């Protein structure tokens, strides 16, 4: 070690430009970053959270495999708003309902959104069934924000939408444990089924829901 340290004497060499270049690059990158992000990016974006009122007992958290204890249980009613600020209510009204919970940053939700839009455009909802999209888990820090723009882009902007609040009250009330998440309610507002994951068979499930809804 002593010999190694002895060999450390600086040679007679010119000052290295590396550190000057590095410092210059870092300063330049900082300036570019400030210019690129100056003025913000979301001045025209509508609010992505809205207050949600939950009435009724929350469903058990969705466990995935096995029998679902929530099936047959009366679901909690929700009241909130869509992106335009209009009041949206999900409550017992004698019609079956499908609630699709989506997170804008979840890649599986992003894959599911165009499938849902295609189903609605090409097949359409069966009679007696309403469908609601519930954007939840929203985070400005995450990819594909804001969800309002994403859903519009995916041709889901006209689908009845109830925006979840910052605490995810709607998601928690329906026992959401992962995204994407579908809850089917029969005409008595009882849970007919719940499932999570990409590749949802909307046509098959909603047809069966409609068949059992009358």
């Amino acid at each position, binding site marked *: 070690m002593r010999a*190694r*340290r002895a*060999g*450390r*004497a*600086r*040679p*007679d*060499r010119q000052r*290295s430009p*590396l*550190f000057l270049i*590095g410092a210059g*690059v*870092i300063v330049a*990158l*900082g300036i*570019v*970053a*400030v210019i*690129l*992000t*100056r003025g*913000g*990016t*979301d001045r025209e974006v509508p609010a*992505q*959270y809205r207050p949600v009122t939950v009435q009724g007992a929350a469903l058990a958290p969705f466990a995935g495999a096995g029998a679902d204890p929530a099936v047959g249980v009366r679901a909690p009613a929700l009241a909130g708003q869509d992106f335009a600020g209009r009041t949206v209510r999900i409550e017992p009204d004698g019609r079956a309902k499908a609630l699709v919970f989506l*997170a804008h*940053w*979840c*890649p*599986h*939700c992003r894959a599911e959104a165009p499938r849902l839009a295609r189903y609605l455009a090409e097949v359409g909802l069966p009679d007696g069934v309403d469908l609601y999209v519930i954007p*939840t*888990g*929203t*985070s*400005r*820090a*995450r*990819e*594909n*924000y804001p969800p309002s723009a994403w859903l519009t882009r995916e041709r889901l902007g006209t689908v009845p939408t109830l925006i979840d609040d*910052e*605490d*995810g009250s709607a*998601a928690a009330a329906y026992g*959401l*444990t*992962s*995204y*994407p998440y579908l809850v089917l309610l029969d005409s008595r507002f009882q849970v007919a089924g719940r499932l*999570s*994951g*990409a*590749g949802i068979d909307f046509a098959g499930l909603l047809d069966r829901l409609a068949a059992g809804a009358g």
Partner: protein
Amino acid sequence: MSGRDGGTDSGGTGTGRGCPVVTHDTVFTFFALAAIAAYVTTIGLWVLRIGAGRWPAAWRRVVEELAAYGLVLAALVAAGATAGSLYLSEVAGLVPCELCWYQRIAMYPLAAVLAVAAWRRDWSVRPFALTLALGGGVVSTYHYLVQRFPDLEGIRTCEVANPCTATLIWKFHHVSIPFMALWAFALVATILVVGGGRGGETAAGAAEHRRDGNDVCVCDRCRHDQARWPGGGSR
């Protein structure tokens, strides 16, 4: 939502430390630009290495510089990546996922050992640092692939709390956090490979090399080694 980031709106364009010009988004953009600079530098070094026969003088200069200052540069890169990751979690409030933690496990000690090695000018750190850099780089690559192709995980759902498939930062249509980490690891590894290849064989490394009036190396080692420059051919 359980994660600090999961259901909040605090991360993206909020102001950092109340500064009206520099927001979190500005810092994220700076990190993304730094990652781009890292991969341009890394790829540039390897192109130069492959074309060393075509541009011998340039390559020799690069090797000489990195042999002399590579440990400091590598330590700065690793320290910058460490500071950046701490900013993301402790200041911007982005909770690290499981794969993020594995990358931290590689990057944090890398910064520490490279700092000590740079202080001691001790290139013998190379195998240990390369092991950390390459291991971290493999995890970063897998994490980036999982973000882009989430089915790789074998499940088709996103967990609520903090899934590794979630892309917390996405800049310039290709830069995410594991992408930044990947190129920090790659740049550190490249510096260690190039700088420590020949001139850095000893502790003093290329610092010993010095030219005489005829541009020939006259250090003791080179006099006994047919006047080779570090990393280059005979002169």
